[in-house]
């Protein structure tokens, strides 16, 4: 009797497993909202990337990406992302292990997680000011001249939000390491090195690589911090996009921003696909 007629929906309680034909209507407000403010803008970017200045379809915007400034922006982004995500992932993993090995309800863990949340996700331009006060021209700690160097100086600032993000993303994986695995390794005569090399290392490897990819995507899309640090030079792609949005009037090509954004979508989608695949592999051990 599970396939009752479609007309009595709402009249009685719906049995589990039956698909009420009209119940999906309840999701329409949310779907409509997401369609207008998430799917439509994304679609517009892709659509406009192939539009000519006077309408009509063209690949001119895409081929215009192969110019000096754009190439250097993409190279800059790549350098910055690789450096900051590799350093951030390694240091963040060490910190995550230190946090995970402590009391799960302890104050240190709480402080580090709350602090990581702030620095990783909600810092924005304020982080640039913090480093300006530390190592800027009138900096408190040192008046470093290399702080303006690209990519190393800016990578240091990026680490300031990459390491916390790594802690947040990698912590569940480290928490998933079971004491029993270590005991089992020791009962079989394994040393600490053996445990890390043959048990914990391989178990954490997918989660680590996945998290590093997420850091890469995060650095790629970061805009606020670098713009507040230096807005005269276009080091990275987001700055080029920002520039093309702000000075739309003088541009030879009104859809340059769309083409640049499409380029970023392509890179991010590749990276994030890798992240979700690896995350699925890592989740096997996190029950």
């Amino acid at each position: 009797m599970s396939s009752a007629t479609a007309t009595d929906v709402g009249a009685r309680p719906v049995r589990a497993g039956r698909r009420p034909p009209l119940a999906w209507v309840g999701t329409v407000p949310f779907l409509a909202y997401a369609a207008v403010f998430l799917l439509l803008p994304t679609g517009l970017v892709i659509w406009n990337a192939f539009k000519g200045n006077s309408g009509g379809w063209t690949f001119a915007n895409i081929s215009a990406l192969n110019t000096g400034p754009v190439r250097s922006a993409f190279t800059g982004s790549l350098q910055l992302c690789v450096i900051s995500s590799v350093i951030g992932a390694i240091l963040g993993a060490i910190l995550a292990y230190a946090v995970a090995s402590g009391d799960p309800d302890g104050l240190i863990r709480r402080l580090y997680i709350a602090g990581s949340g702030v620095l990783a996700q909600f810092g924005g331009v304020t982080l640039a000011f913090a480093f300006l006060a530390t190592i800027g021209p009138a900096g408190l700690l040192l008046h470093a001249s290399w702080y303006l160097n690209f990519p190393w100086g800016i990578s240091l600032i990026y680490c300031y939000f990459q390491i916390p993000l790594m802690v947040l993303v990698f912590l569940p994986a480290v928490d998933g390491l079971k004491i029993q695995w270590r005991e089992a390794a020791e009962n079989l005569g394994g040393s600490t090195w053996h445990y890390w090399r043959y048990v914990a290392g391989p178990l954490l490897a997918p989660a680590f690589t996945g998290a590093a990819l997420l850091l890469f995507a995060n650095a790629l899309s970061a805009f606020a911090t670098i713009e507040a640090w230096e807005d005269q030079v276009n080091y990275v792609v987001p700055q080029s996009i920002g520039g093309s949005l702000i000075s739309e009037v003088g541009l030879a090509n009104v859809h340059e921003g769309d083409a640049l954004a499409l380029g970023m979508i392509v890179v991010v989608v590749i990276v994030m696909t890798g992240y979700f695949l690896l995350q699925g592999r890592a989740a096997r051990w996190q029950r």
Partner: protein
Amino acid sequence: MAALNQPLGDLAADLPAAAARRPGGLRASQRRRLKVFRYLTFTIFGLFFLLPLLAMVRFSLEGVKHGTWSVAAWTAIASYPGPPPLLSSIEITLELAVITSVVMVVLVVPTMIWIRLRVQWFSRVMEFICLLPLTIPAIVLVVGLAPIYNRIERYNVSALMLFWVYVILALPYAYRALAAGLNAVDATTLSEAARSLGARWGTVMFRIIVPNMWQAILNALLLTIALVLGEFTIAYLLTYVNLQVNLFEISRSTENAGVLFSASAATLLFAFVLLLILSYAGRRLRRGRP
């Protein structure tokens, strides 16, 4: 922990004690090494994270003459002339935070409960949409939003209109907080019980399920507020002025203005307190369950 070297009989008696402590199962020397490693790590990273913040606070307390102390930069937060005045952009940012979080809860909570109760096959689509903003960077989103906001500006030019897109930006964070809360509630059993006693679907959702996930809703609110406080990219590129954009403009016109550092420190501290509250609320939630 000497327990591991003892005969099995004694080990059994020690097991609860061993299990109670986290890094149980390690030998004494290993435990010592772990302790040294932990404190060393916390000190080094603590310094790395704290130094820039302390430097920022010190800058904010700098007097007129170099090396003197003064709270002028902190009192200036309320009176900084701009244009636009700093206080007005703080006001707008706080209003945005409130509007965004209310719209978020009103839009997402009923939808999530509805999907859990009635249209479960839809939950994967919902999850995909909610996590999508993590994949599409704000800087890309803003390119596509520019024409849409041109349309919106015909009806309303207020910076408060930013809430439309801020809801989208906060979606992944709020969704994960809410999904965790909803998973902790046995929604099916509760709704079957309520429905068999004659409750309507509205009653089930708002008087049965929602009261069981207040903590998750609070978490979603806190995360949304923290996100709105720190948002720069979209406001700046759509030429609206919120707190972060205002600070950016000040930094361009007046180098090393003290108010930059005091306002930044205040924002970060506020977000930190929000997230610390969140972590304690989360603990109460865990303890409440058996």
